[in-house]
């Protein structure tokens, strides 16, 4: 492994310039020619800082306090800006998480993809275009000879991500750094991009540094996996070795969190059957969207007549890809977005379309938890103030209620004095849950509450929600694009596609015996923690 590594981290220590707190602690790793090394860890583990240091990029506010990073012999830390510029794009390239933000919307794709060639003068323009078109073909882009003439907004998100891969591979670099290249994509798109990326790297014999928080994704592409936690390298071994014989507790925990998928009948025995009684909250024929409304139809229709109901003590999950209307439905039920047609009823009573038309008590009985724990908490208020305001607002004067709420979400009572910035991501989401519970709701809407969290933390939040459902007899509408989470929590599953319900049934039925083709495609696209899963899944029609 160590003969002539392409990239070598040698006892690297990166720390904050003020205070000197180390965010990477004595990291030694190397990547051999043609090898794919994955860096896996939760947010704050330092994986992105480590990957960026391979490009000679140290974020402002950070400094290298020890060691170095060598790319094909060149010390990337002490290299001059000119030397770095000479390497970047040519011997090392970067594939970012968001392709949409990485492309100039006003330039044709061919021109942007071949830009590295023009910048480095490495290839004549015609040769570069030819090479780009060959890459498009191997990355599975349709009509490779023509598609590059389009602008970024004229291709889909998954296609754009593949254009970025083509740009990264254009000059046949020694190493590509991929920073969560599929995390922002839907599952059905992720699988295509993953396949393209793997083909691209393999065909060109390129070494890669693959940063991800998703072990199941990493298992499909990496030769070796390095596990990082809070700046320490916990362990590093071949993918098989890590999956079959993990040495460290943290690694085992990560694997356990990923093994929730695929689900088996045994995992779903505890599911409650759909309730016979009428739902606590019911949506009937909801049509909603944006723009002027004519004939009960908005100009841009997001929801096209959606009906569902959630009974108390049950979790109903809504799954679907971005653009399916999941979040719009949540906003309609919460009274944040007025529907063009349809009604919402709470325990049999029809609610006003807008929140302003609902009584304070009706508002209290429906609470919502948002995706981003960070922005849903006012950073300037303490946890005690955030919870206290809800109690004051709804006139709840029970003594010790704040401590009781914190206890309910498994946080110590002294957290009431903390500001959100002093909490971890998981703790913030617990405070968000506590804030919703402070209103003593009957209906809880959870909008992608685990998708910004790391696998292990997300698993603990799921257990908490499950516990709360039973303790407080809540009707929970759980919106998610993560099938493993849904499988763990939902009693009933509603599959939404472009504003239409394509399937609605008890969780075991939908997850194990899906009826709609779309549900099958969705479920089959979720990566499994198994080497070779990507190859076993035929393109276009993933098997169940």
């Amino acid at each position: 492994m160590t003969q002539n590594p392409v990239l070598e981290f040698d006892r690297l220590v990166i720390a904050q310039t003020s205070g000197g707190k180390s965010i990477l602690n004595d990291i030694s790793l190397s990547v051999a020619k043609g090898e794919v090394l994955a860096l896996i860890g939760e947010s704050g583990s330092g994986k992105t800082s480590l990957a960026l240091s391979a490009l000679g990029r140290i974020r402002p506010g950070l400094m290298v306090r020890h060691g170095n990073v060598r790319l094909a012999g060149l010390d990337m830390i002490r290299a001059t800006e000119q030397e770095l510029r000479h390497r970047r794009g040519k011997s090392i390239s970067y594939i970012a998480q968001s392709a949409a933000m990485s492309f100039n919307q006003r330039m044709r794709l061919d021109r942007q993809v071949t830009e590295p060639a023009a910048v480095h003068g490495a290839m004549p323009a015609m040769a570069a275009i030819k090479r780009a078109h060959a890459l498009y073909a191997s990355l599975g882009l349709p009509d490779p000879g023509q598609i590059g003439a389009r602008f970024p907004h004229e291709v889909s998100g998954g296609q754009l991500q593949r254009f970025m891969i083509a740009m990264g591979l254009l000059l046949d670099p020694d190493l590509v750094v991929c920073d969560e290249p599929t995390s922002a994509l839907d599952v059905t798109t992720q699988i295509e991009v993953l396949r393209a990326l793997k083909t691209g790297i393999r065909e060109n014999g390129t070494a890669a540094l693959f940063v991800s928080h998703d072990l199941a994704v990493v298992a499909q592409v990496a030769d070796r996996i390095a596990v990082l936690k809070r700046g320490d390298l916990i362990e590093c071994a071949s993918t098989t070795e890590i999956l079959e014989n993990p040495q460290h507790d943290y690694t085992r925990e990560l694997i356990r969190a990923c093994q929730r998928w695929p689900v088996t009948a045994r995992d779903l025995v505890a599911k409650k059957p759909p309730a016979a009684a009428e739902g606590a909250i019911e949506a009937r024929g909801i049509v909603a969207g944006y723009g002027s409304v004519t004939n009960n139809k908005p100009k841009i229709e997001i929801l096209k007549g959606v009906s569902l109901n959630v009974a108390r003590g049950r979790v109903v999950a809504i799954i679907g890809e971005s653009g399916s209307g999941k979040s719009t439905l949540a906003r309609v039920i919460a009274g944040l977005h007025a529907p063009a047609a349809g009604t919402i009823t709470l325990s049999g009573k029809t609610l006003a379309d807008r929140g302003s038309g609902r009584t304070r008590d009706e508002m209290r009985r429906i609470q919502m938890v948002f995706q981003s724990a960070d922005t849903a908490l006012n950073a300037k208020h303490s946890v005690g103030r955030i919870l206290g305001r809800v109690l004051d607002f709804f006139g709840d004067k029970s003594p010790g209620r704040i401590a009781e709420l914190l206890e309910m979400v498994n946080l110590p009572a002294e957290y009431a004095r903390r500001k959100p910035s002093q909490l971890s991501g998981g703790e913030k989401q617990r405070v968000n849950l506590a804030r919703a519970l402070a209103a003593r709701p009957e209906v809880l809407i959870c909008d992608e509450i685990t998708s910004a969290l790391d696998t292990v933390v997300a698993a603990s939040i799921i257990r908490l929600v499950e516990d709360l459902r039973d303790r407080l007899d809540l009707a929970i509408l759980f919106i998610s694009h993560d099938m493993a989470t849904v499988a763990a929590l939902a009693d009933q599953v509603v599959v939404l596609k472009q504003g239409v319900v394509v399937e609605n049934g008890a969780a075991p039925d939908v997850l194990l015996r899906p009826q709609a083709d779309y549900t099958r495609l969705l479920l089959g696209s979720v990566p499994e923690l198994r080497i070779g899963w990507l190859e076993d899944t035929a393109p276009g029609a993933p098997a169940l």
Partner: protein
Amino acid sequence: MTTKPDLAPLPRQRPSLTLWFSFGVLGAFVFIAVFSPWLVPFDPTEFVTDLPFQAGNGASILGSDYLGRDLFSRLIAGTSLTLLMGLGATLLAHLVGDTLGMLVALRGGWLDVVLCRIVDVALSLPKIIVGLVVVAALGSSITTLVVVTGLIYSASVFRVARALGRDLVGQDFMRVARMRGEGPVWLLFGEMLPHVVRPLAADFAIRMSFAILFMSSLSFLGLGVQPPLADWGALVRENLQGLGGGSLAPIYPALAIALVSIALNLFVDVLGERNDAAELSK
């Protein structure tokens, strides 16, 4: 793991010279403004000599002005007037601008459209011309000056406050509060205000330097503070004729104006850097 690696030393945190300079200058001027009655060597309205534009000497440090009064005493007496007028105008600008800007950011709708167009018109007119016309029409008094300057600058403050507010309104914590059914009072003061205090404080400092410059310009043009009172702008104007004779009398008040503006600007710069650093270390 073998031995612990030897870590390179951290860069030393240097005390910010800019901060000390701006603090020092502003502190000194505030001190002068507060204690001016005890600091003046002569009565600022009494004649100390029969001769105008005398060079400085032991007793009269900066010499005499165009009528033979002590320039140093007049400069000191003008400090509190200049700073208080600047402060008053800026307070008014922020009171009006912040309230309306944040309210409009929160409410949106027709009120937003109407106020924004009015502000667009106000911003498209040259400030000094508007000031001249209004002050000339109403007659110059200190109250008029402060109110007119405050209202003129409230248009720019409105823009800043509205932009800051708009950034906040879309955030999830605002949605959460609205979902609970919170009214505008809590939304504005409970949720939004704590986020905008620091940027608005920075705007306050820089806006105050603009207000001082603006009112000095009006005074210089003769429409500002009327004799025998004098702010720094008026001191520049009344002593201007001395410049031909080689007197430095108009230069000193001009320097004072420049010094306060620079100090306020530097103060805002340092504040901004601190904010960025705080954001980064999160």
